[in-house]
């Protein structure tokens, strides 16, 4: 059951990337390129994705997940150094290549050698991230 649900969710995610054209890095960079040929498509993708999720979060009240277990706890409100610095780094890389983690994984099926190299570098970065996180958390580094 859990696996079937995960497969359906992943497939919907992949189908959405295909339909929306977010597999094309120029569409992503077009959204970020405010001073160039600006392309608003990404805002519609984000907006379209947020709508069903607003309904879904409401449906989690007084219920349990279909496959058992519990729903995620309420999100924290702490804006710490890791959230800020991590998002700066992510945004910088996202702007450079026009790929974020979802499309980067999906591009395995169509992205050619470039997509493969990006994915490999991304996984390497993810492996190094816990160490970077501890560094940002260390009191010696407190501003």
């Amino acid at each position, binding site marked *: 059951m859990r*696996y079937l649900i995960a497969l359906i*969710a992943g497939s919907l995610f992949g189908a959405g990337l295909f339909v929306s054209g977010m597999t094309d890095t120029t569409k992503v960079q077009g959204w*970020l390129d405010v001073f160039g040929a600006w392309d608003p498509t990404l805002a519609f993708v984000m907006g379209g994705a947020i709508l069903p999720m607003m309904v879904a979060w409401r449906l989690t009240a007084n219920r349990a997940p279909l496959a058992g277990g519990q729903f995620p706890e309420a999100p924290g409100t702490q804006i710490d150094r890791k959230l800020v610095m991590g998002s700066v780094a992510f945004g910088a890389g996202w702007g450079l290549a026009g790929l974020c983690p979802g499309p980067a994984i999906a591009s395995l099926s169509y992205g050619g050698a470039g997509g493969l190299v990006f994915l490999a570098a991304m996984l390497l970065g993810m492996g190094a991230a816990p160490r970077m996180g501890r560094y940002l958390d260390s009191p010696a580094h407190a501003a």
Partner: protein
Amino acid sequence: MEQDWIMGLIGGVLIGLGAAVYLLGNGRVMGASGIIGGLIDGSGRNTGKERLVFLAGLVGMPALLYVMTGAQATTHLTGNWAVIIAAGLLVGIGTRVANGCTSGHGVCGISRFSLRGIVATLIYLAAGGLSLLLMRHVAGVI
């Protein structure tokens, strides 16, 4: 183009439905960086199979759709290897340190009015715009 934003909206709704299925079905936040990152650093060992099946759908569905529709995959990814590698490293480190990316902080976070999700999204959008401005219009690298 007018058609682009309609397809964007439809595709977006599909992504949101995927996130809703994952949340209501398995009780999990559908964040791409968290799902794959947990496999890399070992924090998601107990849910490894579920993660792998999700990723199989994420890769398999676009592959299937490209074959079925006969559409040509156009990624327009830069041919500059140094840029690709630097960008990949930044995205990998950044999303895991910040504990979320476009799907986790963006789609799943904003939709529940999470302060962290909203702040992260504003920051990575600004950083993305700035990096593109500097590297394309100032340095001319991409």
